């Protein structure tokens, strides 16, 4: 059993880790493994330092974990909870190197009772809205198909507006987006959203309104559950789309709006048409327009040809009839021609001034005149009265 190699492997002198090396390795391991998680537990032994940092333990029936919460996070959490308060904390597990302690670095702390109260308030507002018919499906208006003027109520600094602009830019560049800036979270968000929604009703030419914001924590979305905001949304005179947070977030504005979109990008897709599709539709209409006219022209041409045939026949008939009449008239005219009379052996005396001599007194003895006959004229002279 006295294997020198084994002894050598167990010999601690060369290979011992320093404490620092161990704690650092553990820290890397723990902090690399965990993302921030929500944990439910009871607060015990909370110490709130004048710096604003809080230290406490979070425990359940069988164990506990040390927690620290820096001042920049404790500000949002309000007053320090009393011992025994049940809370939800959002924290990232880590190792405090100086002491080698496993601890939770907490960024959010919400008493579970507050969540319960928030839930009760949500139910109250929902019931009030339902009672007033604002959640009635019959109230829902259809989204206009080819809207080109769309109001967007959101924060001009937020991701929601960028997402909407990107999607609309790709799908429907002929669109005009009218952005009404409003705080979407924190103090004043409710008032700002109500004012912005009322302003939408005063913008001429708006066909549709998107209201929303990008993703955020539960409290960040709270304004979209406010009764005032919901009622202002219901009073917007054009169809509305609510797009608050991510797919999994559902807010009361989603229920009041005419359409709920899972995200601001999705809202933009619902709001505007796809240009390529409409262009295809136009191409189809252009083809049908041309086809419609050419079939109409063909029909017209056929009708014209038939009319021309008939017209032609009629003109010929008229012409034939008139031709006979013409011939008859020509014959009559011919018969009446003075030349034809001369042909029959008559002669016409014509005075030197060109007048036809018709009476005895026109013939002066000795005066010359001419006699017109069938093939010319001859000189003559009056002999006696």
């Amino acid at each position, binding site marked *: 059993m006295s294997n020198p190699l084994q002894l050598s492997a167990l010999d601690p002198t060369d290979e011992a880790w320093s404490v620092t090396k161990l704690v650092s390795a553990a820290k890397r391991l723990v902090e690399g493994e965990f993302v921030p998680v929500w944990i439910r537990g009871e607060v015990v032994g909370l110490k709130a330092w004048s710096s604003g940092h809080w230290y406490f333990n979070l425990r359940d029936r069988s164990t506990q974990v040390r927690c620290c919460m820096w001042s920049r996070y404790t500000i949002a959490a309000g007053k320090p909870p009393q011992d025994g308060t049940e809370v939800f904390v959002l924290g990232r597990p880590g190792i405090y190197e100086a002491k080698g302690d496993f601890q939770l670095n907490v960024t959010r702390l919400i008493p579970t009772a507050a969540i319960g109260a928030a839930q009760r308030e949500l139910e109250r507002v929902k019931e009030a809205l339902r009672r007033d018919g604002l959640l009635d499906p019959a109230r829902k208006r259809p989204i*206009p*198909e*080819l809207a*080109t003027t769309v*109001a967007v109520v959101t924060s*001009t600094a937020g991701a929601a507006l960028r997402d909407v*602009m990107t999607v*609309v*830019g790709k799908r*429907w*560049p*002929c*669109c*005009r*987006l*009218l*952005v*009404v*800036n409003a705080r979407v979270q924190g103090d004043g968000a409710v008032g700002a959203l109500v*004012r912005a929604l009322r*302003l939408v009703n*005063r*913008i001429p030419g708006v066909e549709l309104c998107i209201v929303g914001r990008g993703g955020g924590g539960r409290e960040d979305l709270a304004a979209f559950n406010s009764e005032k905001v919901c009622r202002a949304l219901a009073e917007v005179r054009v169809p509305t789309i609510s797009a608050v947070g991510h797919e999994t977030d559902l807010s009361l504005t989603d229920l009041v709006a005419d359409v709920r979109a899972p995200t601001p990008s999705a809202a933009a897709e619902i709001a505007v048409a796809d*240009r390529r599709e*409409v*262009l295809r*539709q*136009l191409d189809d*209409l*252009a083809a*049908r*327009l041309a*086809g*419609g*006219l050419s*079939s*109409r*022209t063909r*029909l*017209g041409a056929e009708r014209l040809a038939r009319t021309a045939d008939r017209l032609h026949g009629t003109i010929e008939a008229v012409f034939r009839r008139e031709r006979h009449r013409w011939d008859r008239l020509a014959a009559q005219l011919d018969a009446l021609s003075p030349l034809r009379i001369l042909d029959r052996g008559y002669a016409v005396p014509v005075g030197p001034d060109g007048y036809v001599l018709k009476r005895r007194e026109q013939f002066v003895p000795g005066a010359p005149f001419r006699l017109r006959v069938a093939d010319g004229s001859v000189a003559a002279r009056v002999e006696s009265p």
Partner: protein
Amino acid sequence: MSIAQDLARLEEIVRKLEADDVELDAALELFEEGVARLRAARERLGAAEVKVQTVLEEAGGDLRLTDLDG
């Protein structure tokens, strides 16, 4: 006149042209109007980029539109 109205009128024109009871000169008029509507709709769709404006209420209550940069 909006794109929606252009499209609706075009549909109506095409349906009339495809029916057989339009006189030729009426058909020609419809066709000419159709071509004009097509051109107008295509022009509208040809816009290069979205126009983004912010709407502000001024002290007096008037609305002011400002182009949004970017």
